[in-house]
């Protein structure tokens, strides 16, 4: 290996590490607020990447059908819940708005020729389609069992992931897809030649991290989420509803996943089932951060990116094994630091 190759591998690792770091942040966010280990996080990434690819190749965007379908189920669940609580028929406005939005993205997705419109329009529409999946998935699958043991939440998360994979196959088909890079230029940085898409990934990840930090530090919603993560019951007592906290954190998770999918799609070929491996590497980062520390998790995820990239060079067929075996020493270290008996639940 010479310096040139090392630089290239480091660059690759940095790119994927930045994505894993974003996912790790989002996984920790959802876990600390709702206790859900969001295994379907990766599906937000693949769905937005494949939606971009569909638009660029002039195919209709069918993901809206899923959004609309889930929105209808959510609407029905909300109406029934209202009926049981207040003994009268009302239509909750938020779920009606989501259903209307679903209809809107179905209509636009099936009729508008997005390949003739600019990149920004495509990105905007991909976000409009994928991000609502976050709150909808929370409403339909998790909200009815929000207080169940975390093991049950994990199993539901896995089940949702499996169902979404099947849905992804149905919607996008089995072919992999790659999108056009945002720009073709390359940047010379000292001895390294860096593709501009790499800079896009790193820049967008950094910007999103800063935006999240500002959101949690300065906005009322961000502070409410932090309160819910710190002490769920206490937050509920001061008026932060767990439904609000769950829905908001899932919306953020979907946003983070969708943005990651859009920036990463020009670099890697994405298949309908690529999300699992991607989100698992986010999970490795999150575990390194003990499911609670954002900076440690982000750092861990960057390391995962490097480990993956360099093991591709030295032992490419063992790449995945090396990455997941990294978990063992981390878990061992955590295990040794653990007090002998903690009381769970």
């Amino acid at each position, binding site marked *: 290996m010479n310096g040139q190759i090392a630089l290239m591998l480091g660059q690759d690792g940095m790119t994927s590490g930045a994505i894993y770091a974003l996912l790790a942040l989002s996984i920790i966010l959802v876990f600390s607020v709702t206790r859900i280990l969001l295994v379907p996080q990766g599906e937000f990434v693949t769905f937005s990447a494949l939606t971009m690819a569909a638009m660029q190749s002039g195919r209709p965007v069918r993901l809206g059908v899923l959004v609309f379908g889930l929105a209808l189920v959510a609407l029905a669940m909300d109406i029934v819940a209202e009926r049981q609580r207040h003994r009268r028929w009302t239509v909750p406005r938020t779920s009606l708005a989501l259903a209307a939005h679903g209809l809107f993205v179905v209509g636009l997705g099936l009729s508008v020729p997005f390949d003739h419109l600019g990149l920004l329009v495509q990105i905007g529409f991909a976000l409009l389609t994928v991000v609502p999946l976050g709150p909808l998935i929370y409403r339909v699958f998790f909200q009815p069992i929000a207080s169940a043991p975390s*093991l049950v939440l994990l199993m539901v998360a896995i089940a949702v992931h499996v169902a979404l994979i099947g849905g992804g196959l149905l919607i996008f088909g089995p072919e992999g897809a790659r999108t056009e890079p945002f720009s073709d230029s390359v940047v010379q940085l000292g001895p390294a030649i860096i593709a501009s898409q790499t800079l896009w990934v790193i820049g967008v990840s950094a910007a999103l991290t800063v935006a999240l930090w500002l959101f949690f530090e300065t906005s009322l919603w961000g502070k409410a989420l932090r309160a819910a993560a710190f002490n769920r019951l206490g937050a509920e007592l001061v008026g932060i509803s767990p439904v609000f906290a769950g829905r908001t954190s899932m919306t953020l998770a979907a946003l983070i996943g969708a943005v990651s999918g859009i920036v990463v799609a020009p670099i890697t070929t994405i298949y309908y089932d690529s999300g699992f491996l991607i989100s698992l590497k986010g999970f490795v980062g999150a575990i390194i951060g003990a499911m609670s520390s954002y900076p440690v998790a982000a750092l861990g995820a960057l390391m995962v990116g490097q480990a993956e990239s360099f093991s591709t060079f030295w032992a490419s*067929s063992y790449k995945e*094994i090396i990455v997941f075996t990294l978990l063992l020493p981390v*878990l061992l270290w955590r*295990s040794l630091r653990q007090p002998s008996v*903690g009381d769970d639940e």
Partner: protein
Amino acid sequence: MRRLLASPVTGIAAAVAALGLMSALLTPYQLTLANNIGLASLTVLGLVLLTGVAGMTSFGQAAFVGVGAYSAAVIATVPAANLPPGLSLLAGSPLGGLLLGLVATVIVASVLGAVTLRLSGHYLPLGTIAWGLSFYYLFGTTELFGGFGGISDIPALHLAGLTFSDAASLYWLIWGAVILAVLVTANLLDSRSGRAIRSLRGGQLMAESMGVNTFSAKMTAFLVAALFAAVAGWLYAYTQRFVAAAPFGTQAGIDFLFMALIGGVNRVPGAIIGAGVVVVLREWLQDVLPHLFGRTGNFETIVFGLAIVVILQKTPTGIAGALARLVPKRLWRPQARRRAVGELPRRYMPLPGEVVLEADSITRRFGGLVANNEVSLSVASGEILALIGPNGAGKSTLFNQLSAVDRPTSGEVRFLGRRIHGLTARSLAANGLARTFQHVRLIRGMSVLENAAVGAHTRGRNGVLASMLRLDRAEEARLLAEAAHQLSRVGLGDQLAIKAGSLALGQHRLVEIARALASDPCVLLLDEPAAGLRFQEKQALARLLRQLKAEGMAILLVEHDMDFVMGLADRIVVIDFGETIAAGTPEEIRVNPAVIEAYLGGAE
């Protein structure tokens, strides 16, 4: 007749008859399907133990199946010369392949368990997902294992002079293994080790306070589940005669968990029902769905994923749970227990008046809050000491210091003259300290008798293997007799067989007291034992505590019911805002101005 119905011999005979009938009726295709169901049942049974009973879960079971299958395949096909040294001895022997698979599984599962089982519950599933993926890539890329092409041409299984080469003969082997595994699992659950595993559901603190080593209980469940999967893998290799990495990935691991959830994750029959329903349904869906959607693909995952969500939201006990509700309760009476021969050995009791438990200037700070400040007290054998004080006075904190659940910031606790600093709640339990909990911690799905028997855990010796093989029956009978005896002492002698969850709240507390007594303690810590009891139950409890005191037990109780305390305690310690404000006989406490002020406020 009823005893006959519930006897295991009848059960096995019925199962064998049913299998015989099936084998005569099924077409060859259906027989193959039945074999697949049997193989899956074996793995899912392990998940029932792990997830439904012990409350942990694994997505890596398919990878353990893979370890079993690849071990069988490598030993069966690779010539001795090409095997790693040490394994060449096993070459060509089916039982050697089984042995290798079991040993490899124990090694992998021990490492995974050692690094995840001490951590909170979500690390095991995440660790097993990573393990499942690593396994898939490892076996797919290693030359010895044939790469992603796999190992083919595995010879037919020859075992003890018999040849298992077709679906019909393998049918008996596979389902024989399933019956054996069901028996072994049922035996394990109905034993001392099984109760330790089941008690994990009541919270680790409770189990450890009863002397259960929760880490080894978890490890036992994880190992047994992994070994069942490995045996299934060995059978799989000889059924398919071909092994490749694809069916052992994480997706398959998820499928096994789905089978358990659909069938009923907390019941042994749920494993077979779940495997049957999923295998048959999958065959059908793989036929129907591609027609429906107009293209090929594994669309059945959508159906199974959504089915799991609905099951977890609506009926978490699965199909087996729903069926159990249909069967009349009377059939489910526990069979007559063997009569206990002899009694469990008793502990040496301290002499009357000897100090058993002593707190010496205990201070416990939580950040800036001083929950206990220089509190001292002692309880002697044959004495009842009551600890009282308004809400938030620091009673429960002190209780936790005394039972080694929490460590004091300064000061020390002595139990039988020894400092307990550094000891665990588990070792205190083994040495004769028993406690109850303010928030009752019983296993709701377990019978009252079994709940109380958890308390006698430290008085038994038999391990997992003895339980599985039913070599533990004599000791088991004595443990259960002891639990029944203590339950009758607290007045629950006629409620042994009912589920703990269906008792009234006050009776829950009585079961906790019986559970504590079953450990043959020399000191008993009771946290609000009279809360929720009716007047007559309180009187009965007071009688019992006086009797225990007369037998030489040291009793420390925290209680809010003043009538109860005043009539019962020899001495009372009153704490408020973490500090001792009074100590003395009930008469002295009744007129103590500081106590009156603490409870009623100052008369300014």
